[in-house]
């Protein structure tokens, strides 16, 4: 699997209800040390209900300038949330002949939505 298999994929709930798109992958460097750094664990998916691409990431940061670009982009992406990886039930097959069309990620029933804000 590669990151692009997940990025931009449509996100569906277990009953087929569409909730948005995967705009980013949240990684946490808490795996076993591999070389110098810890290995990044795929912690979750950042999902935007409004748009496919996260433009510049203002919705996840505490950067508020330059005005009015930052506030406008935050507003455009309001409702962005994080789902933890264990709440992901199924991910798209790369080039799956049985599932043509846009890639999808299906979430487990009763999955939880977390705040996607990044803290420095």
């Amino acid at each position, binding site marked *: *699997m*590669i*990151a*692009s*298999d997940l*990025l931009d994929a449509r996100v569906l*709930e277990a009953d087929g209800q569409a909730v948005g798109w995967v*705009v*980013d*992958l*949240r*990684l*946490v*460097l*808490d*795996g076993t040390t*591999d*070389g*110098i*750094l*810890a*290995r*990044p*664990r*795929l*912690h979750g998916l*950042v999902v935007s*209900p409004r748009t496919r691409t*996260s433009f510049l*990431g203002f919705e*996840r940061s505490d950067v508020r300038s330059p005005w009015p670009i930052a506030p406008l982009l935050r507003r455009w992406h309001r*409702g962005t*949330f*994080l789902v*933890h*990886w*264990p*709440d*992901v*039930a*199924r*991910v*798209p*097959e*790369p*080039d799956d002949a049985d599932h043509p069309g846009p890639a999808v990620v299906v979430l*487990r029933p009763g*999955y*939880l*939505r*977390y*705040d*996607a*804000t*990044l*803290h420095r």
Partner: protein
Amino acid sequence: MTGAAPLLPEPRQPGRVLDARLHLLDRQVLDVDSVPVGTLDDLELGPSGPGAAAGSPRADDPPLDGTTTVVVTALLSGPVLGTRVFGGRPPASRWHRVLWRHVTDVGTAVRLANRGDDLDLTWTERWVRDHVVGRLPGGRHDPDAGP
């Protein structure tokens, strides 16, 4: 699960948090001497566990889901750029992989412990050096050495 429900606070994580697109993808990859060797075009993901970095879990293995702990095993560069621009997916045999264990720092660029010339992904640089630029007179002249 309605959109109006307040989001749960994200618990503090025990390690550094990086978002793939925001902090890793499309950054410059520099070698141990700070020479650019490529851009970080994609990330290879595989199941966690011993041997995960050795190259066995190749990126075109069946996809993983939430029941498996998934880690970044390698940085990808080269032909994957074309498919990120135009769509599709190149065969895994054509990707240039740099194992995560060689990464020493993630900042405004991603730094490696290797020398660029030892990596497969710089083969075009070496080809142009050996066949064109290095053969022209003065091609190996050090600009700091005077005329």
